[in-house]
């Protein structure tokens, strides 16, 4: 069965074109080369040991992050095999085995082999321990990656699970954006890495991580303590077995019903009962109502919203832990920024439901569709982001930050709100259609959107940022607040206007992009030239990965 599954994986892989495969290959080769550089250049056995612990932890971390950050890993979906008369757990384990076939696992193996080298150089007698450690490390890292990925997917079926997934995802995003704040003091303290390795807290934290246990086993054996060596390796092997079994269980085809379990009517759903509505009786009111309900109830959208808030919170806390308390008041600002990225593929989130906008097209409906979405994300992000920053300022006592935070919140919320609406239209990337979603990243790849946001938000906010710096130097920081208002609000309005005009002129083409996939969408664009928006659209078509099967 495993051989068949592997063949199926390769067959499906051949039909999937990835715009970022070269980047993955580059990262893997670079990572492997760096791991070996650390192992070979280390000044002593002890230094090599601490550097290996770091490298192996980073490899395991990459396996956790990789599948969630990139897309298209769920090539072999377990639901394909639901109807086969096979033991579900065997299918799960079979699917896990297919994860070991590919360039990633091979490079992980080559990198982990540095542990065998460490063992051989330290004491040739410990080589077999090192080799056992290498194999166990690869099995552990790859399985752990799948475990986290499927764990996130499974979590999407319950409210609590979604909350935990948001927390986890928020931590990952915070780590990606601000992890260096936490790591930097360790690096500074370590001076020349290959000379001195790690000392102090960083070293003791690293030593606790499971991926360090095989290294500790080799070190113990080198020191003559064979019982400790077997204890470390045995513990790691046991943990690996547990990880494999749990992952196999999670990968097994599920036959439970989908949807979030619910005991009562959803809030605000009694619309037909002649109650008064807060929203106006217009297309704009209709879209705002639908969007607010969808953001509130859809676990996939909830994940974007909640994880942005958690990421903001964690970035603030990371600053505090890393003795960088000035970061803390800006927790809400980061949340607003990350939420902007979460809203940059709104039409991708909706999938083919865009057909309603197409057939219901009237004079004002397209504008209402874009504006309504902008209002909804502003309503959902501005108050909690402001509250988060306010709480952080009060908790940390950093009241100096109030004008800075206010200016940043105003300008970033406005600019990222406008950009989100524009990118949602121009770079729309469908995922799995909403009623067939399983995994946490089934909503569509947004790498182009994220990169554009990272570059364009500071650029479009630069007038405010310039005044903010000048005002701080002059001792008049509050001057930046009105500037932020006159920067952020027009940006949101103007970018939203570009968005609804673009959607109006390419409404059926946008639906075609979602319904039939990128190959057919590409035909509606010229191959070169055109305006900035055409170029943006071509860029997204070439880069963002397709995780939706093509065809109607």
């Amino acid at each position: 069965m495993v051989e068949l599954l592997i063949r199926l994986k390769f067959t499906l892989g051949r039909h999937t074109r990835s715009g970022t495969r070269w980047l993955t290959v580059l990262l893997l080769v670079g990572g492997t080369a760096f791991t070996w550089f650390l192992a070979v250049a280390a000044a002593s056995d002890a230094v090599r040991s601490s550097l290996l612990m770091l490298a192996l932890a980073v490899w395991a971390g990459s396996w956790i992050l990789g599948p969630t950050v990139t897309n298209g890993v769920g090539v072999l979906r377990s639901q394909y095999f639901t109807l086969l008369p096979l033991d579900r757990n065997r299918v799960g384990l079979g699917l896990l085995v297919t994860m070991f076939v590919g360039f990633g696992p091979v490079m992980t193996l080559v990198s982990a082999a540095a542990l065998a080298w460490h063992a051989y150089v330290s004491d040739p007698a410990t080589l077999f321990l090192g080799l056992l450690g290498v194999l166990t490390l690869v099995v552990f890292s790859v399985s752990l990656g799948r475990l986290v990925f499927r764990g996130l997917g499974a979590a999407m079926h319950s409210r609590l699970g979604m909350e935990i997934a948001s927390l986890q995802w928020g931590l990952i995003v915070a780590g990606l954006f601000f992890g260096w704040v936490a790591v930097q003091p360790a690096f500074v303290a370590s001076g020349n890495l290959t000379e001195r390795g790690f000392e102090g807290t960083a070293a003791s934290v690293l030593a606790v991580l499971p991926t360090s246990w095989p290294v500790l086993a080799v070190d113990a054996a080198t020191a003559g303590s064979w019982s400790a060596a077997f204890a470390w390796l045995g513990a790691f092997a046991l943990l690996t077995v547990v990880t494999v079994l749990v992952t196999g269980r999670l990968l097994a085809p599920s036959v439970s019903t989908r949807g979030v379990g619910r005991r009562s009517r959803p809030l605000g759903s009694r619309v037909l009962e002649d109650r008064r509505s807060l929203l106006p009786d217009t297309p704009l009111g209709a879209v705002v109502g639908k969007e607010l309900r969808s953001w509130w109830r859809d676990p996939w959208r909830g994940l974007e919203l909640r994880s942005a808030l958690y990421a903001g919170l964690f970035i603030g806390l990371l600053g505090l832990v890393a003795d960088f308390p000035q970061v803390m008041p800006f927790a809400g600002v980061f949340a607003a920024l990350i939420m902007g990225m979460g809203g940059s593929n709104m039409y991708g989130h909706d999938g083919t439901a865009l057909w309603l906008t197409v057939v219901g097209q009237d004079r004002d409906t397209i504008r209402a569709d874009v504006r309504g979405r902008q209002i909804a994300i502003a309503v959902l992000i501005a108050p909690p982001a402001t509250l988060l920053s306010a709480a952080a300022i009060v908790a940390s006592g950093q009241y100096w930050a109030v004008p800075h935070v206010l200016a940043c919140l105003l300008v970033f919320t406005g600019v990222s709100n406008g950009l989100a609406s524009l990118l949602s239209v121009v770079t729309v990337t469908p995922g799995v259609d909403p009623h067939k979603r399983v995994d946490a990243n089934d909503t569509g790849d947004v790498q182009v959107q994220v990169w554009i946001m990272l570059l364009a938000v500071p650029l479009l906010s630069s007038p405010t940022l310039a005044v903010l710096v000048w005002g701080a130097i002059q001792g008049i920081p509050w001057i930046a607040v009105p500037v932020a208002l006159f920067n952020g609000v027009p940006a949101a309005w103007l970018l939203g206007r570009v968005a609804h005009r673009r959607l109006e002129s390419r409404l059926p083409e946008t639906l075609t992009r979602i319904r039939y996939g990128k190959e057919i969408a590409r035909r509606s664009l010229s191959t070169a030239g055109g305006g900035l928006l055409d170029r943006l659209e071509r860029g997204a078509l070439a880069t963002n990965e397709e995780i939706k099967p093509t065809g109607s």
Partner: protein
Amino acid sequence: MESAEPSTSDVAALELDALTKTFNETRAADGVSLAVPRGTMLGLVGPNGAGKTTSLSMAVGLLRPDSGAARVLGVDVWTDPVGAKRNLGVLPDGLSLPERLTAGELLDHWGRLRGLERGLTRTRARELLQVLELDRAERDGVLVAEYSTGMRKKIGLATALLHAPEVLVLDEPYEAVDPVSARVLTAILRRFTDGGGTVVISSHVMALVEQLTDRVSIIADGRVLADGTLSEVRGTDATLEDTFVRLVGAREVGEGDLAWLNS
């Protein structure tokens, strides 16, 4: 000022004029032309992959044709989409809906988007949900995401009907719908055409089309092979299925084929 346009009664309710679409070197629709007179019900039949969905998508503005035109009551769908879509109700096949709304919320949203007054939307929505037997799900607050395939068809149909359009285009409306609901659907469509409305449905089920519609078009490989009243298309054939098989061709299952199924 005198209008140069023909009088409204002469204008076809829905007209597909040489619609052509190519996907990845495959011609999904190859000059599809049809004219559906007002007050009639047309059945569009054809094998899987014949180009039914592609043709209907182009006719209602969901897919831009490579060439050709489509008109609803004489209004061009592609040059005046707003004018054409006001009189059109559409049920596409297999597409998503705003999944996290209840049926009532979806219809309330749809009514407002269509510019209907709220009281009217509520009255119609309640009636539609009751007739289509979705009222219990609505009482329980079931979201569209939790609906079965048949229920999805029914709420899709409700969105197509809510604004009381003059032309209905329904892609596979009977698929996955239970027999009781199918009878209700038939009654709705009959009442609609009796009132002067026009319906186009696509289907694979010949018996259904034969029993339900007064006009039929057979489409295969992106081309219209036959079009006219039921008796015109059927000619001397005993059933529509015979005509269909004669025009499209059928692969017979030989005596030796699939013998292993008897083991």
